[in-house]
């Protein structure tokens, strides 16, 4: 049983705490948050040992792993501190606020033999994992191009206030939704990727982007159009939709469903010529504990496996997350002016 601590118990932090507490192979030993009121409430009502200072927690409690769930601006310092102490790390996305910092941590973790995972939860979605497998099996032949869309209704009215309207505080659609969208692109098509062009546009915000159009080129041969919009009032919650075209067919996928079109039947994969429909219900999705969807439970099973040495590297590693940070930077710098 590996011992872990959690730093930052916000809304997602509380969910992570519940999930981690029920994940086999790990045991939550201590938690930490700077809000004294919150910590007092948790301390009074749960069994967890509580701290308001993370360094104190790490000094006093022997831990194998730490989950860092604090605001993005603090990721770098905390991850660095844990790596230097030899503690394995799960950190929420995005990895850090700059590619330089992320790259530094990738190297530092390697030198210190520390394992890392970043909270790109889409990589643990059963449908997206099936898509990845189909791509690896060349089900649609050689992939030529794709369209990756992420839409949601975060900013739906004019507002000049709040952290979301401030780049310095991590605001803007590119830095909020962008990581998920780009990470999915590099999960499917590889980390040998660069941004070719980008356009950032305001809709309701006054100082940041609400829409992102970015063209990515993977491995000098797969071209992908990434369209990200957090001002779409037509969707109930954030949705990802991807259309992938290959030499032998096409894949359409979201978190729940997957359609695959083939120009020829594929007997090995049991797929017909024409359209084939698959649903999330076709996959085995059993989890030891469910709270916010299987993806979140499976993400923590992976961290447990990483700590227990069952896997050498996470499918959402520091390295792959650092590439996502690079893509965000390239998208921002290639855009001429905020429209």
């Amino acid at each position, binding site marked *: 049983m590996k011992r872990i601590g959690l730093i930052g118990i916000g809304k997602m932090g509380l969910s992570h*705490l519940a999930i981690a507490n*029920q994940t086999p192979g790990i045991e939550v030993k201590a938690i930490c948050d700077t809000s004294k009121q919150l910590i007092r409430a948790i301390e009074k*009502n749960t069994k967890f040992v509580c701290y308001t200072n993370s360094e104190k927690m790490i000094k006093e409690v022997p831990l194998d792993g730490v989950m860092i769930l604090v605001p993005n601006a603090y990721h770098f310092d905390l991850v660095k501190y844990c790596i230097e102490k030899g503690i394995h790390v799960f950190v929420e996305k995005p990895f850090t606020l700059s590619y330089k910092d992320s790259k530094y941590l990738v190297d530092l973790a390697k030198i210190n033999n520390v394992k890392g995972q970043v909270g790109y939860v889409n990589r643990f979605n059963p449908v997206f994992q099936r898509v990845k497998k189909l791509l690896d099996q060349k089900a649609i032949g050689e992939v030529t191009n794709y369209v990756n869309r992420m839409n949601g209704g975060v900013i739906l009215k004019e507002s000049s206030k709040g952290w979301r309207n401030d780049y310095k505080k991590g605001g803007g659609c590119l830095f909020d939704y962008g990581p998920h969208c780009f990470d999915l692109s590099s999960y499917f098509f590889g980390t040998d990727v660069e941004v070719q062009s980008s356009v950032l546009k305001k809709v309701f915000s006054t100082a940041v982007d609400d829409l992102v159009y970015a063209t990515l080129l993977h491995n000098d041969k797969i071209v992908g159009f990434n369209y990200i919009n957090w001002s779409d009032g037509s969707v109930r919650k954030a949705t990802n939709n991807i259309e992938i075209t290959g030499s032998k067919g096409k894949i359409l996928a979201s978190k729940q469903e997957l359609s695959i079109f083939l120009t020829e039947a594929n007997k090995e994969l049991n797929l017909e010529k024409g359209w084939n429909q698959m*649903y999330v*219900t076709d996959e*085995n999705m*059993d989890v030891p504990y*469910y709270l916010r969807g299987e993806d979140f439970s499976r993400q923590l099973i992976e961290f447990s496996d990483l700590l227990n040495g069952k896997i050498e590297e996470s499918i959402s590693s520091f390295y792959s997350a650092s590439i996502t940070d690079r893509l965000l930077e390239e998208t921002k710098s290639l855009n001429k002016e905020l429209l």
Partner: protein
Amino acid sequence: MMDKVIFGDNQFFGVNHMSEQTAIKQAQKFRTADDIYKTLEYVNDIGIKSFMFTTHNQLEEVFEKMKKNPKFDDFKLYPSMPYAHKYADALIELGPFEMINKFTPGNKLVSGLKGVGSVISANPVPIMKLLVDSEMKLLKGMNVQGIFLLNIVTDLILGLEMHDILFEFAQYTEKKYNVKAGFFTMNYAKLHDVLVNKLGLKDPIIVSNINKIGFRMNPSKKEVESVLAKKDSYNIAMSFLASGALRPKEAADYISSIKGVDAVLFGASTPSHIKETKQIIEEIFNR
């Protein structure tokens, strides 16, 4: 105790676990309170006498119409709470103290202080009671036969092992409203163990996914089946059609083949589907 056939509300609010498109299509049918009311009227007319729903604000108008129609006098309501978005939105717009005031029934100042006091003293039980009272305000004078805790809350409490709150909730609904508590969960086996073995609740009502393909039966279909068969809880199956992945006949055959399912909760948006599903469920229990 409860009816075998219980009508649910997902179709009214654009929820489908398998397909976003289906959810959108269903939500289009129910744009107004009148659309929802008419469906419930049909449901009541064909003899489904139990409705289980999340306490959405949009239902307030529907209930007002129902109160005026004596046909609904024997129509049983099973509210499921809390509808988290309502509180999350209020929390963002008003802040924690104003939010508690907004949702506090009766004397705003006094009960407001009660809530604020419990935030400060870090005791979640008075807050739970305030929230239940607030949600029940919507249903004053109506035929409420049970109060249910939604899975996002049940499972969070379960995950954090704050089991006392589940116990207090069950006590409170019985004491104050004279109805049994029920619990939605996506972790049937774990929750059953806590309610029955750890907390000693007698025949607790548990609503969970039970279907032939094992969709969201955690930790596994086999484990859930074996706990269901103990028959020491009142088990309501939801998603028995696995959000449309199963044909009604095979879905029903499966429910009949296992032990321990006491009732089935289902949703559908067209009269023919509602009627057909009702008959299928009734056949399960008549076999």
